[in-house]
């Protein structure tokens, strides 16, 4: 067990034992569920209820504050619902991929609807994975393996 390496582990987007995931979903129940699933897979979780809040957390809000850059280097994965009022998950994905500071962060899109054109659109825009809701523990395990452990 490494002593005192939590801070070290969190810096520079490094893949660690406790990756930091930003989960975005307008549905309260889904936020609670995804949070629990991720925490059960040893992830640190921050939730946001919409795209704007997510972007603010990541430092891309209307007011660019340099102190928020700390949040950016700490987020190892963004998982977002597709259907959200205001900014959709797809629009959020685009904003992230257009940002020089954020584009390397893998983005996973979730949706309750299995629509091939939707899935392709997201994958083409750079989404790492598309997952069908409701999420189960096995989905998150797969996610963790594909995106985090395997890349470190």
């Amino acid at each position, binding site marked *: 067990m490494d002593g005192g390496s939590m801070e070290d582990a969190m810096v520079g987007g490094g893949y660690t034992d406790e990756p930091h995931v930003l989960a975005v979903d307008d*549905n*309260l129940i889904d936020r*609670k569920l995804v949070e629990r699933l991720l925490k059960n897979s040893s992830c640190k979780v921050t939730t946001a209820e919409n795209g704007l809040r997510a972007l603010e957390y990541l430092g891309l809000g209307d007011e660019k504050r340099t102190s928020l850059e700390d949040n950016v280097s700490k987020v190892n994965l963004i998982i977002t619902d597709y259907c959200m009022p205001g900014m959709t998950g797809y629009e959020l994905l685009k904003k992230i991929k257009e940002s020089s500071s954020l584009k390397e962060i893998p983005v996973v899109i979730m949706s309750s609807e299995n629509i091939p054109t939707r899935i392709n659109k997201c994958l083409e825009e750079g989404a790492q994975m598309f997952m069908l809701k409701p999420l189960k523990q096995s989905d998150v395990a797969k996610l963790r393996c594909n995106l985090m452990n395997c890349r470190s």
Partner: protein
Amino acid sequence: MEVGQMQRAWVEYTRSLFREGFLDAQFQQLQLLQDESNPDFVAEVVSLFFEDSERLLADLTFVLEQQNIDFKKVDAHVHQFKGSSSSIGAQRVKNDCIAFRNFCEEQNIEGCLRCLQQVKQDYYLVKSKLEALIRLEQQIVAAGGSIPMEELSS
């Protein structure tokens, strides 16, 4: 009732809820997420579901009472309700929402009103069943027992 009896009652009751289609496999996923470090997870999520659902039902009732029904709004609410009922494993409610969305698309007022009645009925039914289930779980835990989740897979 002693703990063993309560545990058996819990198993039977849970099985019946799955058998009768009130709950589906997703509810089991929620139960699996509950452990010593999160002993109230299911009760918490279920409680959020109740609050959320009652708000959605009130909004749906309001929108459908208007002279000119905004079907986009109806669909948005039903979509939310379908999402949360699906995430919690409330199968009948979820299926009612699927039918509801079809009537929304067709802008079928009669169909929508019937669906609203149906979804309300099924929601209140699953609500009372979930409340009973959680009460039973709390009694088991209060009596020093644990909830025999593993019995469900047998």
